[in-house]
């Protein structure tokens, strides 16, 4: 890399080029993450990586997976919520399915976050379906 002549101008120039390039080369996942993070502050949500354990938090993200338990076991609906910075397991105890809790859906959840076996979990959060996502 060669040294820029005037650092500020070069940074602006490189910044533009870099921005265009990164828009073109970035994974769609990274673009989605950026979109999510952009709306987060306006809705009062905290990025998952910055959520402290055992604290009530508000998270905005999309559901990447939804797991339906077989009838034989304890009823619970588990989903993986992803907000571009990390993911958290959202578990609704006593429910087999919840209308609207489906893969691809954007949701805002409030609850107490914790870490179980290396996996961040929120049990029985208050949830709010958001427009956007897959439907």
């Amino acid at each position, binding site marked *: 890399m060669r040294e820029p002549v005037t650092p500020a101008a070069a940074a602006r120039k490189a910044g533009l080029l870099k921005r265009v390039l990164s828009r073109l080369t970035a994974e769609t996942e990274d673009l989605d993450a950026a979109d999510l993070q952009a709306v987060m502050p306006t809705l009062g949500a905290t990025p998952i990586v910055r959520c402290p354990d055992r604290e009530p938090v508000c998270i905005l993200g999309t*559901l990447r997976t939804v797991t339906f338990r*077989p009838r*034989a076991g304890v009823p619970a609906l588990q989903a993986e919520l992803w907000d571009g910075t990390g993911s958290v397991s959202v578990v609704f105890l006593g429910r087999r399915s919840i209308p609207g809790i*489906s893969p691809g859906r954007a949701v805002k959840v409030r609850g107490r976050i914790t870490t179980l076996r290396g996996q961040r979990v929120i049990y029985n959060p208050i949830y709010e379906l958001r427009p956007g996502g897959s439907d």
Partner: protein
Amino acid sequence: MGMTKRVLVGRPVRSEMLGEATLPKKIALPVFASDALSSVAYATEEILLVLSAGGLAMFHYTWYIAAAVALLMLVVVASYRQNVHAYPSGGGDYEVATTNLGPRAGLTVASALMVDYTLTVAVSTASGVANLASAFPSLNGHLVIICVVVIAVITLMNLRGLRESGSAFAIPTYCFVAAVAIMILWGVAQVATGHHLAAESAHYQIRNTTSYTGLALGFLLLRAFASGCTALTGVEAISNGVPAFKPPKSRNAATTLAMLGGIAVAMFAGVTALALAAHVHTADDASNLVGLPAGATPRTVIAQVGRAVFGGSSPMFYLLQFFTALILVLAANTAFNGFPVLASILSRDGYMPRQLRNRGDRLAYSNGILLLSALAIVLVVAFQASPTRLIQLYIIGVFVSFVCSQSGMIRHWNRLLKTETDAAARRRMMRSRVINSVGFGATSLVLTIVLATKFLKGAWIVVVAMPVIWLIMRAIQRHYQAVAVELEPPENLRPSKPHSNHAIVLVSKLHLPTLRALGYAKATRPDSIQAVTVDIDEAEVASLREQWEAHEIPVPLTVIASPYREITRPVVEFVKRMRTENPDDIVTVYVPEYVLGHWWEQILHNQSALRLKSRLLYQRGVVVASVPYQLRSAAGSGHIPAPTAPRPASASAEPLEQTR
């Protein structure tokens, strides 16, 4: 496919038969010597062609050149008899050079020999077809295609196996030797009785000649000598083929070599003498021959001698031409014996792809045979089946390997002499060392001559090709080495068990293949199990969930969101996330797969499964398990019984067998 192969190649031969595929001397001689003997058919001609550039006056030098070639032949044969005794394993020059001079020299020999084996096939076939065309001039327009067909036929015979091809090749070789012997004796008898032999070209004159004097004359003579040295090719074939001999292998091979040397020298001398006596005139460029009918191709020298001795339309002439063509074609077969063995040895040492080491159905090295055949066909087509042009590339490789192996043999004797104390054995070794030293001196001199005189005439192609092959083989060996080092287990070798095993079963619909995959996944007793489907079509996922509920399938079903309607990527990402959460664990992905009878049916299925499998292979700690489900159409091929197909009631005799 299977039937075509059976018809062409024959029934597979059991491995135990391997030892049986050896040859007695009387068969080994024609199999391995047809190359060396067949060069009689063109060696004289090549000398005359070169000399013709200086005009007819030059032809009287032929004698000296032929004598030098014959002498060289005897020297090389004597040297190779030492090789055969010292290294009977069939590695030939490659082994001698590797053992005594190091792997680099061995590789040099190997690349040289591979080039030359390929050229042997090309030159011999081209020359054989040219001789056939001398008897039947109407063939002249189609030489290339005839050559290709001939190579294909030889390939096929070799794929069938050595022994069968051995006996098939013995008779023509002996017939050729007999025909040439009769021609020589008959011709000599005619000359002795004062009869005058005259070739059809005896009255031709040569136009556009340069007069050669001094250095230029010397160079021309050297070039003629270099061309005549083609007579020496094939001598090394025996030393590479020692394992194919009946025991005592070394002695039989050495005896065969001696017989080969004697016969080849006698025939070469005889043909050359008759060609001179009959005043055969030929020229490099046919248009320089004054007296040749316009547009005609001059006959080969051996054909002209045959016509002069037997008469143009006598059956003996046609027989001679026929057997000459045949033996030249069979000479190509020598390479088909040598090349695959060499390739298999190289591949054993890691210089060539492993496939070349495998023996095929008939115990022949099928892949090596096919490779050689393909290379030779390329050469023949590229050079328009012209023996004279091909011969310019020839014999450099052979002489490179001669030189390497002879110097290797000198080292071999030096090494043995250091420790040997028995006086008689020492004397024997000293004598062998002298023979090999003479061989080394002679062959390296000839190599220099050949290189100097042929380089601009096309030999540069070989000079370029050999290092390229050398480098490729080195690269292959480096790669195999690197892989072997990476795979080397540590000192305390113990298979380590993953901490836990998580099963993922891919589901698209709830049908028999899915159920089989689910059942199998559960049977492996994983630490956790879940079925996974991708949310592409909401209605489909909804119906899958309903069925899941309805059948009370005891496995949790995870639906993965796919905002961009992909299948592969969301699954791969999902599996990756499972991995990062549990780094010591194994994730096993069970993929239900349909098995169908025909490839065109196969195209219609499993496409996303195949893509997914190939992507998942690159994930560490992920095992992909294909759970096959054989559809009814698969029953016909692959010998799979139909999956619980309801039997027609008419098959009443069946139940007896089923109860067993």
